[in-house]
């Protein structure tokens, strides 16, 4: 059982991601954010369940849909917003933007705009942890679309051969951009890892407690040098592929979206559980929400008022 303090913390973290992403959408709609962003809304329980089971010095690699992973690993709201707006106070001094946030202090080796592009990085971090004799673990987050990339299989093979402390964390939100995953994925997802002798677990990714418990088990296994594992979390993105993807009925039924939002919203599910188990009441949750909403608002305001990088920074940091 997960104790109630922890559950409350999960709730805060998930709500933080939810409200952060809603604010990102507003910034986009208000033409305040350059470019696009891929919202994590609907998948919060995965990032939070996994990152809460990690130590601060453990590693993660993330994807184009990476804001949730960054926040769950402990990134600061104001510096995240600043990066999204291309400001000098952002995590990457405005050079990375939405798809490239990295937070070295918290073991976040970076989001990645190349689908599957971080399989090598996560596996390499695990190899490095092993060579350096630490007991750090690496989690490689990726969407089911990355199952199309050969790099993933090369890396899983080596991770299994060399018993590396890495967890391949597949978030199956059912769509590769605008195509249902069943049209792009032969056989079973788990079978791919099993072929390398990598143990797999498949769970409901909307249940943060379940994600946390399962991830904890696999992380402990990796920490004890028992090798890699593969965790498949079934989940759903509530918004479009990116903020501009509004008319999506041609590839995803509206009814399906509504069902997920109504019955499998991870934030709502946890709120219900907290109330049902009499850990807190609705009023308390409302208080938490307005508190977090305040943090989000001041983070966004900070970013909106922050300066752009100096023009001369453009050719700095090409080389170390």
């Amino acid at each position, binding site marked *: 059982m997960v104790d109630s303090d922890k559950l409350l913390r999960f709730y805060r973290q998930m709500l933080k991601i939810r409200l952060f992403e809603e604010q990102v959408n507003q910034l986009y709609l208000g033409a305040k954010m350059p470019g696009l962003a891929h919202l994590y809304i609907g998948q919060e329980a995965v990032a939070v369940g996994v990152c809460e089971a990690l130590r601060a010095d453990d590693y993660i690699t993330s994807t184009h849909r990476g804001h949730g992973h960054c926040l769950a690993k402990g990134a600061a709201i104001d510096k995240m917003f600043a990066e999204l707006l*291309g400001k000098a106070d952002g995590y990457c001094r405005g*050079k990375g933007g*939405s798809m*490239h946030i990295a937070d070295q202090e918290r073991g976040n080796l970076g989001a990645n705009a190349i689908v599957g592009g971080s399989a090598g990085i996560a596996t390499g971090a695990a190899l490095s942890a092993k060579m350096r004799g630490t007991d750090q673990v690496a989690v490689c987050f990726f969407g089911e679309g990355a199952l199309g990339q050969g790099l993933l299989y090369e890396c899983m093979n080596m991770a299994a051969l060399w018993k590396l402390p890495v967890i391949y964390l597949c978030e199956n939100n059912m769509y590769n951009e605008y195509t249902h995953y069943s049209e792009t994925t032969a056989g079973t997802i788990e079978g791919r890892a099993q072929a390398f002798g990598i143990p797999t677990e498949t769970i409901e990714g909307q249940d943060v407690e379940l994600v946390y418990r399962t991830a904890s088990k696999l992380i402990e296994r990796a920490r004890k040098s028992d090798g890699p594992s593969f965790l498949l979390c079934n989940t759903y993105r509530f918004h479009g592929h990116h903020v501009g993807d509004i008319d999506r009925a041609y590839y995803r039924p509206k009814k399906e979206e509504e069902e997920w939002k109504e019955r499998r919203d991870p934030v709502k599910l946890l709120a219900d559980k907290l109330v049902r188990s009499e850990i807190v009441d609705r009023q308390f949750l409302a208080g938490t929400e307005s508190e977090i909403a305040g943090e989000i608002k001041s983070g966004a305001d900070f970013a909106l008022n922050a300066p752009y990088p100096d023009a001369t920074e453009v050719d700095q940091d090409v080389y170390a």
Partner: protein
Amino acid sequence: MAKQAQTTAGRAITFAQAINEALAEEMRRDPKVFILGEDVAEAGTPFKVLSGLVKEFGKERVIDSPISEAGIAGICVGAAMTGMRPVVDIMFGDFATLVMDQMVNQAAKTHYMSGGKLTVPMVMRTTLGATRRSAAQHSQSLHAWFSHIPGLKVVLPATPYDAKGLLKTAIRDDNPVVFFEDKMMYQQKGVVPAQDYTIPFGVADVKRAGKDITLVATSSMVEVSLKAAEILQASNISAEVVDVRTTVPLDKETLIASAQKTTRALVVDEGYERYGVTAEIASVIADGAFYYLDAPVKRMGAMDVPVPFSPVLEDQTVPTPESVAETARKLCGKM
């Protein structure tokens, strides 16, 4: 010249529609032509370039693939070697990194290595161009990489008219052709004939005649150079704008003749400047027009940095009409 043909028959359509039309016409003409790529069918690609093609040609000829760039490129090489004429869609030119072995070590070399027996009549369509606030992994212009490889042809259309005519030529060519489309150009309109026509490879197009300086440009930089020419006009400098249209094969004669006439040349391209296609083109001109030149050949490419996200940084990394005009003015000794 292209200019004249454009005005004879046609209507204004977008660059994206011109690509779409070329594909549709070629697929009607030749049942061996098919499209393979990510989100190409119902979605018609994220840029909506292929919208409607799946309706006419069905899912057997407009095939949605997994996110497997190396795989789809390789499958197209094999299909091309055995009688089909595939067009593979690589969404962002940045993903060229993933298809490189298939294009460079397989597609490009097969005809030569087989002593001329096997052919690879395939087209790889992809994109280039920055300033979309898409950051370092979705903004590069990597056509120089392919231009470096013997056995590949490389096409860089700059107008809807050129896009349709050159894509048809690409599909009918018996060699692997890499076809770059500027993402920022998709919604630009131009006059395009409704009927069939092709534009041969290796024929540069003088997009604007002039007498004081030659601006040689590719793809996205043709429009930039035309705007620069307008600016230069105001300071009484007459710039000729030559669009190379294909870097391989390269129309050396037209480039050299233009530089001989104007006595000055500036080469503008959106790929990284260092070791870019501008270097090759500048050297061709320096060689061929040496005794006519009044100034060293200059070149401008994208700044040699990963493309930054922040608009204030990104906008500095690509040549603009103003920066091209300024460099041209200096070359003409007017500043």
